[in-house]
């Protein structure tokens, strides 16, 4: 293959957002809390002011806090809204939900949502989960109440990103055979958990199904239109290598239709294909590659730079308990009026600050950062 063909997927954040993200797009942002958040694409969405987004996330919040603060989220499907780093509940999101600017929110737990991304990634119609039962996560179904579940008269799903049911609870057809701890032929299980109430005969549960059996909550696949993830390196062909904790990113990156990968550095395919077992995402899954060093700032990218705790502290000071207009003004000044991420990084953050975050090879973070003073 000629090198020119290889460059087809490489584009600027501006091009990627223009091409793939429209008002109403169902979109999932990778990373977890303060780790490897795809801020370059997210900031470009703020610059372009793309509204009415249907955002889906398993424990993100920094990206989503910015988008909510800029007034761009209409629907949110989530598990957790804590902006780690001094703000227990992400303020702009909370404000948007309470006031109604975010019109719909659907809640899952970390595990059931992760199983949804896994079903999406594996191309399977559902995955089982042993949590969420007995809780109000099962009882409250926002999308159903909003009339968004099910099919239209023409046989299409009402919304291609919203499954016809939030959960389906069934009795395990294998009668609890797979539950651990288990009793094996040669003795007790080796795992550390000791309770398995079904085995102990404590359960005769007829809830949900009306019949006695081992209750399992099936969850539907998550299938967003666009998934965005940040990696350390992406090869020109699209091969992705993530270093450090993966969190939701393998499953959530592969469950959707379009995958945009932003990275610290684009490299020749040979560099990553020399040790292919360390790569996570195969080239053909990737539709757009956006290179932006330091683009995950203020979140952390292991082996490259640490998160900037001072940014979070300042943010909390600036926006917490402020009216909506103040929050919006913060994001307009901080992000919207910048030309692109280089402009943002040079002029809003500063090269000196960025270099102070560079990581230590032993720790994969910067052990000398003074985060709390």
């Amino acid at each position, binding site marked *: 293959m000629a090198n020119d063909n290889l460059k087809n997927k490489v584009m600027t954040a501006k091009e990627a957002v223009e091409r793939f993200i429209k008002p109403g797009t169902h979109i999932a942002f990778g990373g977890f809390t303060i780790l490897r958040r795809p801020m370059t694409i997210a900031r470009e969405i703020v610059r372009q002011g793309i509204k009415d987004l249907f955002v889906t996330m398993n424990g993100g919040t920094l990206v989503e806090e910015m988008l909510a603060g800029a007034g761009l989220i209409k629907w949110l499907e989530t598990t957790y809204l804590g902006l780690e780093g001094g703000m227990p509940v992400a303020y702009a999101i909370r404000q948007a939900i309470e006031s109604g600017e975010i019109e719909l929110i659907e809640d899952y737990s970390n*595990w*059931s949502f992760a199983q949804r991304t896994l079903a999406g990634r594996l191309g399977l119609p559902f995955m089982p989960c042993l949590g969420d039962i007995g809780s109000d996560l099962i009882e409250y179904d926002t999308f159903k109440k909003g009339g968004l579940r099910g099919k239209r008269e023409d046989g299409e799903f009402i919304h291609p990103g919203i499954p016809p049911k939030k959960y389906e609870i069934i009795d395990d057809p294998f009668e609890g055979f797979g539950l651990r701890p288990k009793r094996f032929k040669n003795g007790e299980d080796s795992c550390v*958990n000791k309770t398995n109430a079904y085995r102990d005969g404590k359960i005769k549960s007829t*809830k949900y199904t009306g019949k006695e059996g081992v*209750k399992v909550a099936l969850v539907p696949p998550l299938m967003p239109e666009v998934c965005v993830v940040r990696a350390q390196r992406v090869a020109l062909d699209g091969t992705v290598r993530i270093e450090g904790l993966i969190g939701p990113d393998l499953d959530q990156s592969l469950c959707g239709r379009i995958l945009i990968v932003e990275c610290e550095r684009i490299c020749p395919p040979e560099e990553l294909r020399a040790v292919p077992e360390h790569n996570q995402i195969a080239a053909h899954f990737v539709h757009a590659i956006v290179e932006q060093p330091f683009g995950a700032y203020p979140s952390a990218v292991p082996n490259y730079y640490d998160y900037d705790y001072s940014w979070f502290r300042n943010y909390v000071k600036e926006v917490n308990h402020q009216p909506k207009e103040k929050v919006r003004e913060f994001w307009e000044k901080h992000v919207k009026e910048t030309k692109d991420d280089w402009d943002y990084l040079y002029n809003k953050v500063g090269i000196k600050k960025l270099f102070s975050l560079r990581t230590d090879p032993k720790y994969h973070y910067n052990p000398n950062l003074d985060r709390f003073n």
Partner: protein
Amino acid sequence: MPVDINIKEYEEYLNKMGLEKEKYTYMELLAVATAREMPDEAFAFVGTGLPLLAAMLAQHTHAPNMTIILEAGTVGPKIEHIPVSVADPRACYQASTLSTLVDAFGTLAARGYCTLGVLGAAECDKYGNLNSTAIGSYWPKGVSETGKGPDVRLTGSGGANSIASLADKIIAMMVHEKRRLPEKVQYLTTPAGLRGPKGETRYDYGLFRGGDLVVVTDLCKMKPDPETGILYLYEIYPGVDPEYVRQNTGFDLDISRCKVMEPPTAEELMILRMKVDPDRIYLGRKPKRKE
């Protein structure tokens, strides 16, 4: 685990920080009270903040064989610098493996490696059900009848529900205020206790593990009565009046079985200060309780 703390250095530290060997702060007391509930050999799903401090203290004292797991996929780290989030790279240092959320809850927790979970919440009702989702209705504006969303929107489950569904034992950490300890939670995010005004248990809903709960507040510890499932006052901190605890509880709290907790030992305090949080990032915080 042998603790290599130089006594002279510790004394200098105490002087510098204005602390005393035998005297403790509220946060130190809470960390010790929580740590003592953590069994050795446990596979513990802990969040950051006080739960992690308590877990690190337990590892340095009575639970050297406890494995810490963070829900984003980190297994068995040897933490040197206090992380601010479960996905903080500081929480990954010297971990056995780093994996994914599917692994944390599947490969570990569901597979049988989640014996202990430490959770916080905005509300904990008399059956040990936790609410960390919303106060004053749940429905967002698009489907509510009020023209707006809930009065207060909170973080949502995160890993809390998943951990409480799969762990043998749950430690719930609460600020002991009447409004936070009601008869019934406004939204049931996490069934952490045995549950049930009609005698139904968590098992009746199909949850196959758990039921062992201790609620650690800034005044006391409460546990569910094995018969009724209702929380009773189990241990009170030194110097706290049981009647005061009862008055600050939103349901009728049985205080008849209450014992007084052994105060933090000089050794526990020394380890907490020198090994766990020397910069007093969390230990230096003020209690959340509003008098």
